[in-house]
């Protein structure tokens, strides 16, 4: 279970999260919506451990452990995954090498033996087939020369191969055409069960047609100002964030 209490964070002295509370239980899908500059991306990055942000107050616990005290790689080892809005290109590192290194790093952290090359290949092939990715992506450098949609698909491939417990997806729908959106949603939905928790950060309601959330939260001015179920997203789609902005 993820418990965020009164979380405050800033970037270069500017307060971006101003007291955010959120509880996410295993099996739940939470959508965080809000206007530009509301702090949506900040929340994703702070949870993943980005050093670009200063946490100035509040607590975050994940399965009883103090998440904020852990460096980024340790959070990943504890099952936290961030799907990037802008996945990073890494020339010279092939996708398959990257994923195998990541799996083994996480296994090592958990005191488990390394995955065998054969076992890894089988896993990778299965997940790539499921996401309708061409086998050539294995040997291509991470995200280098990928289209917007291919980069997002690659994020979902990492998600499926690493199989984390807390999945944070930062605007995974931005820059996606409808086919790519289908595939991304298929990947995410395939993980939906009582063992996985999801936080979907999105600007648009459209994503939620494909990944139906249990809860929708409106983030404005660095805190959650309204929470509801799926109907809240449809309401926002119809009326915008104006009412919430005034209320904030």
């Amino acid at each position, binding site marked *: 279970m993820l418990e965020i209490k009164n979380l405050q964070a800033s970037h270069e002295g500017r307060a971006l999260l101003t007291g955010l509370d959120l509880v996410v239980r295993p099996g739940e899908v939470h959508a965080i919506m809000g206007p530009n500059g509301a702090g949506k991306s900040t929340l994703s990055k702070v949870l993943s451990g980005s050093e670009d942000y200063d946490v100035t107050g509040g607590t975050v616990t994940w399965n009883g452990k103090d998440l904020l005290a852990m460096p980024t*790689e340790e*959070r990943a080892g504890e099952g936290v995954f961030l799907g990037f809005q802008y996945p990073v290109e*890494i020339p*010279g590192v092939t996708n398959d090498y*990257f994923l195998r*290194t*990541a799996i083994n*790093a996480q296994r090592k*952290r958990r005191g488990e033996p390394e995955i065998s090359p054969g076992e890894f290949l089988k896993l990778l092939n299965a997940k790539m087939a499921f996401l309708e990715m061409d086998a050539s992506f294995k040997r291509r450098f991470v995200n280098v020369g990928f289209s917007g949609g291919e980069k997002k698909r690659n994020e979902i491939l990492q998600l499926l191969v690493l199989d984390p417990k807390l999945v944070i997806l930062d605007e995974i729908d931005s820059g996606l055409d409808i086919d790519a959106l289908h595939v991304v949603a298929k990947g995410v939905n395939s993980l939906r069960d009582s063992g996985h928790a999801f936080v979907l950060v999105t600007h648009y309601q459209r994503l939620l047609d494909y990944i139906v959330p249990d809860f929708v939260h409106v983030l404005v001015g660095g805190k959650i100002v309204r929470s509801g179920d799926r109907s809240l997203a449809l309401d926002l789609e119809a009326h915008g964030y104006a009412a919430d902005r005034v209320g904030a």
Partner: protein
Amino acid sequence: MITTWRSSHAAFRDGAVEPAWLATLRRDALACFEKVGFPAPRDEAWRYTSLQVFKVTPFVHQDVGANAELDALVAAQRLPSAVAEIVIVNGRIDAARSRYPTDPGLTVRPLSAAVASDDTLPQAFGRLAPWRDVAFIALNTAFVQDGVVVQVAKGADIAGPVHVILVSSGGAQPIVANPRLIVQADAGSRASVIVSVLGVAGATSLTNLVEELQVGPNAELHHHVLALQPANANLMLNSSVRVERDGRYHALAAWLGEGLVRHEPRVVLAEPGASAHLDGLYVLDGSAHADNRVVVEHVAPRCISRQTYKGVMSGRSKGVFDGTVIVHRDAQHTDASQDSRNVLLSDDAEANAKPRLEIYADDVKCAHGTTVGRLDPEQLNYLRTRGIGLADARRVLTAAFVAEVVERLRDEPARDRLRRHVDARLNKVMEAR
């Protein structure tokens, strides 16, 4: 110091029996060395590398007998793919450790044997290397003990590399070796020559290697030098290369040792359609020092040259890329590029990158670029979000940075070996941080 070299030359020559042309050449070269002398401290070409060690250290020639440490050193670097493997210890061929080829398209001989028997050698020896102008080449010419002469016959396609292993052994006194490598790749041939430079730890040495490589019409020559010397083992390397019509020259210089390396490749694209790809990579640590002074001359039209040098510097190490492309008046449609990329892993490490173009033709395409920087924090963060720890993330990114150059090496066992040495070096560098 110069006088010491002269008296040492007299002793070195005492009792030698060799053809008159070589004796004359040695005498002339010694005179040139005395005239040219070691570069002065203010010499711009030597701005980044101190020659103090060569001025104060009394280097001597020395033979070596059986040595278990040396055996292990050589054994670890042998290449299973090699069609010939010549081991040179302290400048002299070690016949017991060497093996010659059986392929009829390839002739590999000790220089000492070729000197005695080959009528064409006087034309090849000293033809490409500017021994009158460059102190270390003059010195090598005056003092050369032995070396390797490689001839690739017209049209021959030699799969495995000719591997030359240069070792300086440990000794009470600093050791100097002046080996020479002469390669003639005849028209339409294809071959690889790999030079590995090793040294027994703890000893002070100077390996002053001179290479003369001739790439004939439509021939393809791959040339890889890997230096793994310990600290206090110095490598001076002058590589003179001439590429003829439609010939292709591919070089990869890898500096992964702990001592000093100064490499001066001089490549002349002499006839139309010739090309040269010069790659360099160095991973330096401690007080290691690698100074690359590259000169590529486009003499004829429609030639291509590429220089890609990648350096990773840690500790107090220093990496220098000083590259010049000269495009002569007749070299129209020249396509030349220079690229020097450097990553600094410590505050005390230093990278110097100085690409230069001298263009005297008007219809040319020339580009150069340099970067000196740190690892990209966004890339580091991305790897860490996937569970890869900071030290491993640094290692992965640094290995990726040099991979472009490593992966271009033609011979697979040599490529595997290089990858292994790069990884080992990076592990050591990361540990030391």
